[in-house]
Each structure stands twice: as C-alpha cells, then as structure tokens.
C-alpha cells in the first residue's frame, strides 16, 4: 500500500466512524457558535446602579444625571439608606451603589472637601470594573466642574483655570484589542484549543477502536501508518483551521496583524505536533469512550495554563514547565504574539522550534506505541 492509498483508507475510516465524524465535523462547527455565544455583546454596559442621595441638592441631582449618562451605568432608582441599597444588590436588582453624603453641595461651595462613596458587586469583576469606571469618571467630572466654578469666582481667567485643572494630559489607550471587546480576547486562544482538543479526540478514538482488531493498520509499517494518519488528519484540519483562523476570527472581530503566510507557517508544526501527539496518546487506550473523557477533563486546565486568561508570571513555575509539553500551550501564546500583537517572526521563533521539537518527540513516541500495539495484538492472537 503506498502512502496515498493509505491516506485514502484513513480518510474512509475517519468518515465512516460515526463517533469521530460527529466529534470532528459536528464538534468543530457547534463549538464555533456555542463558545463565543455568551460574549457576543462584547462589553458589559448599563449596569444597574442604586443611588443613596442624602443631600437632595441641585449638584447631587446633576451628579446622578451624569452617572446615568455614562454608557456603563444605568441609575435604576433612589433609596433612603445604605441598608436598603444593599437589599437591592442582594436581590440582584442592582449591581452597584452610589452614596452622596449629606451637605455635599454646601461643603463644596464652602471650599471643604467631600467624599463620595461608590460600591460595586465584586463577586462579578467585569460588573464591578464597569460600575467603578463609570462612577469615577462621573465623580471626577463633577469635581472638576466645582473647581472651575470656584476658580472663576476667585477671578482666575477661564483659560488659566482650565490649564490649572488639567495641567498634564494622561493619554491611556488600549493596545491590540482597541475595543476592549470580549470575543477578540477569548476567541483566538480558545479556538486554537478547540482545534487541538478535537484533533486529539479524533486520533484518539480512531486508534483506540483499532488496536484490538486486525486491520489495515497492521499491514503497513508503523512509520507508514503514522505518516498516513497524520496526512489524513492534516487534510481535514486544513479546512477546519482555515475556517476557524480565517472566517471565524474575522466574524468575531478578532484583530489580525500577521500575514496569511506567517500564520500558515506557524500553524503547520502545531497541527503536526498535535496529530502526532494524538496518535501517541491513542496507543494508550483500547476503549473508544475514554479519549473524549480524558481530553474533556484536561481542556479547562490547558486553557488557563496557556497564559492569556491568567498571566504566566503568576502561574506556579512547575505548572508552566509541565505544560510546555502540550502543543496547544506554546501554539496559543505564539499565535497571540504573532497574529494579535504583531510580534516579529524572529521573536516567536523559539516557540516555533519548540513545536517542531514536540512533533519529533511525539512522532517517536507514536512509533514506539504502534509497535507495542502490533506486538500485543500478535501475542493475543497466538494465545
């Protein structure tokens, strides 16, 4: 059997096996829609805020209007005391509270300082940061206005007053994900992980189903079998990867900085290493339902250890070192650097070589594993 015939046989085995076909074709399509679904609105806006206005002055009302005008906040009402406001938060009617102290306007006009209190529900970080950002900017705005009025009253000329208030300009801009959107943050890493996991499951089920039965896999040498299998999966994943990295990235507004050629060059060793790792792993199983379960359980740890959710600098060293053997970990980080953050090829080169190294290691392990399976089956038949 030459390598092309073998590849065709492999493809036939993959497509005729319902479990694999469903996992690969169904899973890849289904997850491309389901996983980003909660994040489609990108940015949390209009978080419900409850106000405790103890001042009831023109200025406090203006402050409330300013807070409500912020895109991040929606004022849902006013209550008389903090305890009542807390009840609103506990019943999830509101996610934040603003307390305007008694004598707010009078103190400001008299030139005394006042303190505004903001609270946000920090059980949900994104909600908390939205509430805090919205309120801090509204509060700062109110403060500046009061200052400006005070200075004008003291006879400072308007231009000078403006100057004194903003003596320095802080120009803080998000880089790489300018909209601070959630899908551009989650999708690039997550989709590579989905490709990685489905490829491992596919090769895992295919192998686990074969090792105990006679078949074409015995009639060719282990190297040939491995090459044929990797080729067949690469052919399928050529389409899946193009769909994910091409169309889905575009659809979910992921910022893209690298060229098609460099991305393809980057993904080549990733897919090869993953396919080889999948075959190597499959030789450990003879039950077809196990690979899916094992990979399901380790997908969340891989996602978090890959370093885009939680910074690598804070992950314990042993976990980081151990995770370097998983092809998805260097691949996700390198892809983010290359494609989302616009790093040069030279700077991601070490990770690229690491992926080739992983390919070589898993290729060797897969050959050893297949040889072992051939021997075990021969022994079982002799008995």
């Amino acid at each position, binding site marked *: 059997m030459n390598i092309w015939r073998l590849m065709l046989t492999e493809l036939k085995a993959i497509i005729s096996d*319902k479990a694999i076909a469903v996992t690969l074709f169904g899973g890849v399509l289904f*997850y491309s829609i389901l*996983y980003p*679904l*909660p*994040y*489609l609105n990108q940015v*949390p806006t209009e978080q419900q805020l409850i106000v405790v206005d103890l001042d009831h002055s023109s200025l406090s009302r203006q402050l409330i209007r300013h807070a409500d005008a912020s895109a991040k906040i929606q004022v849902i009402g006013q209550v008389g005391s903090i305890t009542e406001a807390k009840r609103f938060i506990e019943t999830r009617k509101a996610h934040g509270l603003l307390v305007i102290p008694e004598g707010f306007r009078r103190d400001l006009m008299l030139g005394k*300082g*006042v*303190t*505004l*209190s903001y609270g*946000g529900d*920090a*059980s*949900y*970080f994104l909600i*908390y*940061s939205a509430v*805090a950002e919205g309120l*801090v900017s509204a509060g*700062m705005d109110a403060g500046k206005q009061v*200052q400006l009025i*005070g200075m004008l009253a003291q006879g400072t000329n308007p231009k000078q007053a403006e*100057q004194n208030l903003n*003596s*320095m*300009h*802080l*120009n803080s*801009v998000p*880089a790489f*994900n300018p909209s*601070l959107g959630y899908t551009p*943050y989650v999708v690039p890493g997550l989709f590579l992980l989905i490709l990685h996991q489905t490829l491992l499951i596919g090769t895992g089920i295919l192998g686990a*189903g074969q090792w105990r*039965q006679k078949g074409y896999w015995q009639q060719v040498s282990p190297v040939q079998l491995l090459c044929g299998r990797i080729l067949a999966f690469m052919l399928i994943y050529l389409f899946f990867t193009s769909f994910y990295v091409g169309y889905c990235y575009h659809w979910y507004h992921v*910022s893209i900085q690298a060229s098609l050629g460099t991305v393809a060059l980057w993904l080549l060793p990733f897919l090869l290493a993953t396919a080889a790792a999948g075959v190597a792993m499959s030789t450990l199983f003879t039950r*077809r*339902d196990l690979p*899916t*379960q094992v990979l*399901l359980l380790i997908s*969340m*740890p891989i996602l*978090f*250890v890959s*370093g*885009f959710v*939680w*910074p*690598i600098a804070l*992950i314990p060293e042993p*976990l980081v070192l151990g995770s370097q053997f998983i092809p998805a970990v260097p691949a996700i980080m390198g892809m983010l*650097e290359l494609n989302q*953050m616009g*790093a040069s090829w030279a*700077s*991601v080169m070490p990770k690229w070589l690491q992926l080739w190294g992983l390919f070589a290691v898993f290729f060797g392990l897969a050959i050893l594993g297949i040889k072992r399976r051939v021997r075990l089956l021969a022994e079982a038949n002799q008995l």
Partner: protein
Amino acid sequence: MTERTPHANAADKIKGGTQPSSISFMALLIALVRRELRALWHDPWQLALISYIPLLGILCLWWLFSAGLPRQLPVAIVDQDHSQLSRMLTRQLKANPVTDPQSFTDLSSAISAMQQAKVYAIVVFPYDMKKDLLTGHKPTIDVRYNSQFLLVGKLLSSQIQLSLGDGLLHVAGLKQLANGTPKSQVAVNLSPVKSQTTALFNRNNNYIGFLVPPVLVALWQLLSMLVMANSLNRELHLAPTNQNNGIVNTLTEHFWPKVLAKVVLFTPILMLQGSFILAWLYLYLALPMAGSLALLLVAQLVMLLAVWSLVLFIFVVMRDSARVISFCTALFAPAFAFMGITFPTHDMPQLAQWWRLIMPSSHYIESHVSVVSYGAAWPSVAGQLSSYWGFICLLPFIYLLSRQLLPSTVSANNVVAVVDSGVALPAKGQ
C-alpha cells in the same frame, strides 16, 4: 415493533424462572447497589474519576490561581525626559504593588517587549515634560496597555492612572503652594470631591474568591456527568443472558431500580467531592463566606440530581455509549462560559441566556454567589432552587421515552450478540 413481543416474552420467562417474586424492593435495591459497587471496583477509570482525578484536578486548578492577587506585573517605562519629575512618577509606579516598572531606553525595544508579552503596558514620559509643565504647556504622558489580555490590561490601566494621577496631584500641590495658597486649602483645591470605591463582597478583589469556585464547580459537574454516563453506558454492553444474584442484566429489566441504585451509590461519593471543594475554599483557605455551608451543600445536592436527570435523558435518547459521551461532552464542556461569572448574564444575548438554563451549574452558581457573598438564608435559596423546575418536567419525558426506546435497543443488542458474539462484545465494551 413486531419483533418486540417474543423478546419481551423471553425476558419474562427469564425473570419468572430465576427470580422469586417475593423479593422486596429494598432487598432488590441493596442487591443492585452491591452490583454497582462490584462494577465500580472492576473499572479502573470509574475509580479514577471518583478518587484521584478530582483531587488532582481541584488542587491543580487552585494552585494555578493560587497567587490570588495580580502583583508585580511588568510595565515598560520609556523615560525621554530624565527629570526629577519623571523619576518621581516612576517611583510612584514602583510603590504600587500591582506594577513593576522596567526601564527601557527607547520606544521600539519597549514595543517589541510588549508584543512578546514580556511587559503588559508601556508608559512614555515625553521629552521636556517637566519644562512644559513648568512653563504652562500641557505635556501628554502616553500609556498603552495590553488589552489582548483583558483582565491584566484593565487592571493595569486603572492602577497606572491611579499612581500617575496621585503623583501629578503632588506636583500640582507644590505649584499651588508656590502661588501662595494656604496649606490647609491646597488639598481641597486639588480634589474637592474625593471618592472612596469599595469592592463589595470581595474586598481585595481576590481572584481565588472570584474565579476558582466557578471553575471548580464546572470541573465537578463534568466529573459527575462522566461518572453517571459511564455507569449507564455499562448497562449497554452487558451480555443479556448473564445474571448474578437473581438480577437480570437486560437493560429493560429493573431499569428504574438500577438507575436508583446508581443514584444512591454515586450521590454520596460526588457530594464528598463537592464538599471537599467547599471545605478547601471556605474552611482551609478561609475565603470570606457570609452564609452557611449547609445551604451550599443542599444547593449542590439539587444540582447533582439535575445533572443526573439530564444525563439520563441523553442516555435514553441516544442509547449508544460513544454518542452519549460525545453529546454530554458537547453539552457540558462550555458550562463555565455560561455561568455568568466572568461575563455578566444580563449582558449575554437572549439565546445564550436560554442555553444557560440547560446547565445545572448556572443555576447552582447563583445560589453559590448569593450564599457566599450576600449571606442568603433558607427562603431566598429555596426560591432560587425553584428555578430547576425544568429538570423536574424532564422526568416524565425520560419515563415515557425509556418505555418506548429502551426495548428496541435491547432487541438490537440481542441480535448483535447472536450474530457475532465473539467479536462484537470485546470490541464494543471494555
């Protein structure tokens, strides 16, 4: 449908022949639980799922986030001014526990460091910054933060602004003093409106309290799903004629008592794992906890029963081990994203909010947050538990479907077993 009757008759005969009809339900249940225990003992994977995998998984995921508070995140400083002011601002950043300023001589090397995720933000002090400030021009400090890593980027953005803003306030204060403003007035002039921002329920913005509980609950849900699915799938592969202690292995025979036996056996085991999670987080690590642990255990129990009804439903509909596993996986794998902890529920699209209701974990996490953060008591938790009503509605469906569909699987299995009993069973099963 026509071939169903002979098989049913055969099953009746087997039942009549081997089983004394006087056997009480309790005895049957105990025998079935024994049978489950035996099966568990002979299945290394199931044993792993209830013993070292959860232990390892829970501890590893906690260890990953064990830093808790993001500290010492590298920030590139490009100081083109080299003045006393720029050095003062750098010291301000150094004094902030979140930022760890690292000096870069030129902008391009700072940019390439940021592109390689070696630093998470860049602060540029422009040339002649101090001179511009003193001569009444308005210099601009440029800050760029990496929003590709959203959590880190947002945190750094606010912390850098806080540190620099405080430093600049100090400078403005000196200016006012030089102008002859009385010292007592300076502070008020600078910031007439002070703000006090309180992170309610999680005072120091600890990531362990925020992220680890939902992650572990998602893991626990996966484990309970797998344990039940595997146990149910096992029934599909048993040789139908094989019997021990008067219990028939045919799928349709005592189907509901068998399911009950599985629930009776696995509920305490999985609850042990669930309470280990709670004990680890709220007793050993002593994370703040406003309510009572007992309430959370009740919520966990209800979630577990919901997970199992869902798995049972999928099993009855699919009736094929590989398909049951892959369908359950597809359903439960994204549970974490739908919990609404990282991204708020009310900002999800409507479709996502509906899908979310299918996951037992998203019902549980609401009770979890309200007990842990708000100290909710019995009445409000009971109110939340009522949101599981959909899963109760599932039960009659499961019953009807099991009456309709399981016999056809049994007969199909029998045919396979008859045709090639030698090859099919070992290949399909263990």
